[in-house]
């Protein structure tokens, strides 16, 4: 995607209530603030592990998940904080996981790259590129077998579309008309490799055609546009018509992992995308539509900031993982014989 302007879409709030729109905005701010706080934590003190920021990509996570029901399924990636926030995973538990505390979402056993919350349909962030794609298809197949009406979404990056598992899964999902939605977060880079350098056909949405799956490209920094695309895909999935491939064009505002300096991209490119920041654009659109004042938006930011301060305090005051905690999680010692 050389020319991002081709998918740049104006904000169209048709059919969306003010509360819903402000809720999406708040979720994006939460995801941003979670990762910004985490960034400074990593700078200022010894933190366990590593983390990958989705800064600049929040509209993809929030726009898609806002079209789901609470019990629908999501699989995510190593860059998964925003998906978890969007799915409603408590910020306290997420932050405690970053601190490797017993109160963490995964009891301190997963860390940033394996965040999950099964009570909220968040089946996991996967640190292996593409690994969550067939798992979402399996959750969709399970929903079909159980007749539950649930749908499953898999988020993955542009890099994952070059994994074989992407192709195997899309073929099966289409053959079986599974209630699945495959979301490419095209943030332009697989670590240092631009899409044009890694994909013979850089229009990734077109890959759906190979599997008879409708593919669409969406302005991934426009949360309303992402939501509308997702809502159509969810309706299609629930009605038994099968999966959809949504390519969200976005940008990874920070490096691949915590302090990676991204010397492989030009400053002008980074600056151009800063002006297209999804939170700034949504804030502007809400004000232009007369749905929120600057003061109201500042109030949301202040509230989220306080939530994150509370989350950090919760994490800091939580008990550390004991060295032998992990032993209980290797296998499950129950059978149903």
């Amino acid at each position: 995607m050389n020319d991002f302007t081709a998918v740049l879409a104006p904000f169209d709030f048709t059919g969306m209530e003010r509360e819903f729109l402000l809720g999406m905005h708040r979720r994006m701010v939460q995801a941003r603030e979670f990762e910004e706080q985490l960034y400074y934590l990593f700078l200022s003190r010894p933190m366990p592990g590593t983390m990958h920021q989705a800064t600049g990509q929040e509209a993809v996570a929030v726009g898609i998940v806002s079209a789901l029901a609470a019990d629908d399924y999501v699989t995510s990636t190593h860059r998964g904080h925003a998906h978890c926030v969007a799915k409603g995973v408590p910020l306290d538990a997420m932050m405690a996981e970053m601190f490797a505390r017993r109160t963490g979402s995964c009891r301190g056993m997963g860390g940033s790259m394996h965040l999950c919350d099964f009570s909220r349909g968040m089946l996991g962030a996967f640190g292996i590129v593409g690994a969550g794609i067939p798992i979402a298809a399996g959750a969709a197949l399970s929903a079909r077998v159980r007749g539950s009406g649930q749908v499953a979404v898999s988020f993955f990056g542009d890099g994952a579309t070059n994994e074989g598992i992407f192709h195997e899964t899309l073929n099966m999902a289409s053959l079986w008309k599974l209630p699945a939605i495959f979301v490419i977060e095209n943030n332009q880079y697989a670590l240092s490799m631009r899409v044009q350098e890694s994909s013979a056909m850089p229009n990734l949405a077109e890959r759906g055609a190979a599997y008879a799956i409708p593919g669409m490209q969406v302005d991934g920094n426009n949360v309303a546009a992402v939501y509308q695309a997702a809502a159509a895909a969810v309706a299609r999935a629930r009605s038994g018509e099968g999966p959809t491939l949504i390519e969200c064009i976005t940008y990874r505002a920070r490096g691949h992992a915590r302090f990676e300096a991204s010397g492989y991209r030009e400053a002008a490119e980074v600056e151009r995308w800063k002006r297209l920041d999804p939170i700034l654009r949504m804030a502007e659109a809400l004000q232009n539509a007369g749905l929120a004042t600057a003061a109201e938006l500042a109030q949301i930011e202040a509230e989220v900031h306080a939530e994150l301060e509370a989350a950090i305090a919760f994490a800091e005051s939580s008990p550390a993982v004991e060295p032998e905690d992990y032993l209980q999680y290797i296998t499950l010692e129950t059978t149903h014989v």
Partner: protein
Amino acid sequence: MSDPVVRELSMMEAIREAIVQEMRRDPRVILLGEDVGKFGGAFHVTHGLLEEFGPLRVWDTPISEAGFMGVGVGAALTGLRPIVELQYADFIFCAMDQVVNEAAKLRLMSGGQASVPMLIRAPQGATGRGAQHSQSVEAWFMHTPGIKVVLPSTPYDAKGLLVSALRDDNPVLFLEHKMLYGSASPGGGKATTDPTIGQLGRVVPADPYAIPLGKADIKRAGRDVTVVATAVMVHRALAVASQLAGEGIEVEVIDPRTLVPLDSETILASLRRTHRIVVVTEDTRRAGVGAELMATILEEGFDELDAPVIRVCAVDTPIPFAPAAQDHAIPNTADILAAIRRVLE
């Protein structure tokens, strides 16, 4: 009350019966794999299941091992108990990421939120089909924390172990030796029966029953020497034991039946009686199951040994095609006999 019905079944029939009975009992059990539906499975294990249970329970998949293994993981995470069949165990390497990085790790990574009650069935072992359809894969997965490994040697064990494996909340790899199926492969009518296989464990109750995972079975009791063997090697060890009984040497043959969990106590208890032990497996020698069994014996039973432990394993080679070469590469009764004589010296 009438006596329970018992019949003789082949291992293929016993496994099918266990699957059918569990699918009738538990609607969460589904089947995924290549040609498992209308073709009935490469070794006819799933014959008739599509007709009985329909396409929502029996899924014929494309040739996408990584993909349908991942579908199995996703289904297992969300309330089903899938059986994923691989046509040959050798093909599991195409799906290695989903088995090792996802199925086996999700419970720990999620801090105990996730369980992956997925049963992977895979036919393995040397049957003259060349290097990519003949290997024994158990060591790879015995080495992998988070997945259980079952390796039955008789129809009776296969049925009971399959029931337990399906009801287990962890991923379980169920390895079926092709030479033990007791059926012909549907393609060429090639016999899949080892000449040493007798009537052992062919009598199978019709009612469902469960054999717990992690419980070894003493296939033949003996006071002089212990042989720990798996799959086809159980039968070869038993043939050797019959031969040595004629010389007044009593060989105890133990089949661990599951490698994870491993019933080391039954093996060590036998060692405490015989003080001599030989380990026989069809997988290759280097860093193999034999090495692991031997290390367990040495760590926990060294003081009981009156002779060095000997392992009899396949040569460290891809399995060659020519029948004479294949037979040279994997342990035969003469190899087992020689090993037993050495520990008795």
